[in-house]
């Protein structure tokens, strides 16, 4: 039976048991503590400065929809002085992304924020539908993930923003910690738990929902009746992440603090220098100017493989050898437009970030 009143205001009927604290709280107190905790996360990490132009990576899904709503609310409530934009990537997945983009377009109206949509087709000349028809459903998530990351930076550059925020939540980060451990990618643990990352040649990226539980994000969207899109991608899901996710949800069911505890574990790892050195130093892609740990960035390698009909060139060593054996890239090869930051690398930032930036994730 529910207790008579909310643990915070002692007045209203509770509607939610907080996974973080076990507290039973009412709807108004829930909205207030959820928003205030995100505000505290933002201000403790000093993520923004007045006048910053900030793009919200918006997929139309629950996390980014709630993020857009909360960023707008906090910007007004606490006078952050931010110019907010919605930035969406159209991967070109019929029956999935086209529908979710309709949600983002409604969000644009509902939150009165300018929206920029950048498509894989425009940037790479390939939709995901075309990529899947070329390579099948195996490895297509690799293409999509690499292309999306770069597309977000490029979309942000055309908006001339200082900062990209994404809807990654505590559950997502805990999953990534688990995956990195299971893959032996210990060198990435520190970076994957950072609230804000910035390499020399990329736009600052941060995760205001780093400490927000997925359960609370979904409950927030439910009680605020926010308009979001929730359909699984029609192409094969990321199976490995799926296992980490199921495992994490089982842990959470037994002990809800597991999620925050795993994030703290990731943060607390001290990685020996020899291990850190397994991360390659960053350079600039010789073909497209995007940050890369090799001469060619991953997106250029994947695109060259697609264009030359050796799609596994960017996936396996065997594919790479096949590409090398077939000679140098022809001059007529389709290339990704050269990447330039709007105002050059930003000024030094007052956060736990500036360090050599390893690649994705």
């Amino acid at each position: 039976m529910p207790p008579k009143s909310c643990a915070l205001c002692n007045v209203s009927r509770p509607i939610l048991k907080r996974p973080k604290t076990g507290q039973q709280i009412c709807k108004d107190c829930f909205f207030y503590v959820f928003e205030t905790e995100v505000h505290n996360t933002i201000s403790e990490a000093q993520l923004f400065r007045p006048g910053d132009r900030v793009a919200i990576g918006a997929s139309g899904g629950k996390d980014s929809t709630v993020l857009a709503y909360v960023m707008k609310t906090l910007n007004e409530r606490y006078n952050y002085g931010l110019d907010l934009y919605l930035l969406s990537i159209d991967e070109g997945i019929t029956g999935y992304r086209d529908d979710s983009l309709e949600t983002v377009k409604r969000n644009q109206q509902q939150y009165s924020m300018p929206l920029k949509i950048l498509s894989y087709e425009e940037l790479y000349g390939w939709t995901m539908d075309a990529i899947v028809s070329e390579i099948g459903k195996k490895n297509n998530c690799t293409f999509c993930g690499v292309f999306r990351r770069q597309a977000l930076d490029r979309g942000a550059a055309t908006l001339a923003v200082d900062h990209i925020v994404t809807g990654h939540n505590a559950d997502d980060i805990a999953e990534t910690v688990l995956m990195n451990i299971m893959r032996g990618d210990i060198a990435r643990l520190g970076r994957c738990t950072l609230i804000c990352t910035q390499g020399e040649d990329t736009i600052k990226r941060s995760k205001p929902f780093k400490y927000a539980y997925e359960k609370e994000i979904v409950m927030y969207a439910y009680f605020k009746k926010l308009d979001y899109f929730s359909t699984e991608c029609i192409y094969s899901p990321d199976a490995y992440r799926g296992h980490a996710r199921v495992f994490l949800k089982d842990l959470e069911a037994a002990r809800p603090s597991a999620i925050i505890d795993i994030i703290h574990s990731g943060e607390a790892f001290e990685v020996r220098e020899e291990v850190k050195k397994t991360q390659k130093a960053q350079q600039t892609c010789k073909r497209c100017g995007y940050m890369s740990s090799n001469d060619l960035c991953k997106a250029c390698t994947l695109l060259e493989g697609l264009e030359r009909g050796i799609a596994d060139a960017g996936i396996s060593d065997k594919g790479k050898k096949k590409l090398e054996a077939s000679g140098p890239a022809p001059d007529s090869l389709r290339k990704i437009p050269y990447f330039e930051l709007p105002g050059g690398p930003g000024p030094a930032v007052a956060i736990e970030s500036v360090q050599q930036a390893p690649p994705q994730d």
Partner: protein
Amino acid sequence: MTSSSSSTEQLKINVDFGGGLEILFDNKRSHVVSLPLRVAPSSSDTNPTDPISSSTTESATADETRPTDVSALIDHLKDNVLSDRKRAGLFAENGTVRPGVLVLINDSDWELEGEGSYVLKDGDNVSFISTLHGG
């Protein structure tokens, strides 16, 4: 709860699916289901911690039945309403919802209401929302 127990009486429960779960239920977000006032104490996959579940099988007698609760609703939805049988595991497993599916009873987190043991009343609203889809 009130226990007027004419065996022909039925509970009408309003069920909503969200967060992508509706795809498993004929792509319909709202359903109205009718359930008897009492149900057999166990189904094949009742919570194994339930002490009486292991011994009983079908044909429960009147005093072996239990008032219809949310666990019974979940069993009913899984056995009779779910349309995508191949992916039933995305909704329920081991006699309860799959971890990551949120449940609200009359707009309140079911963790405040006794979860599966909440005894349903006629006209109750129960929502199931998946958190498992991308954001």
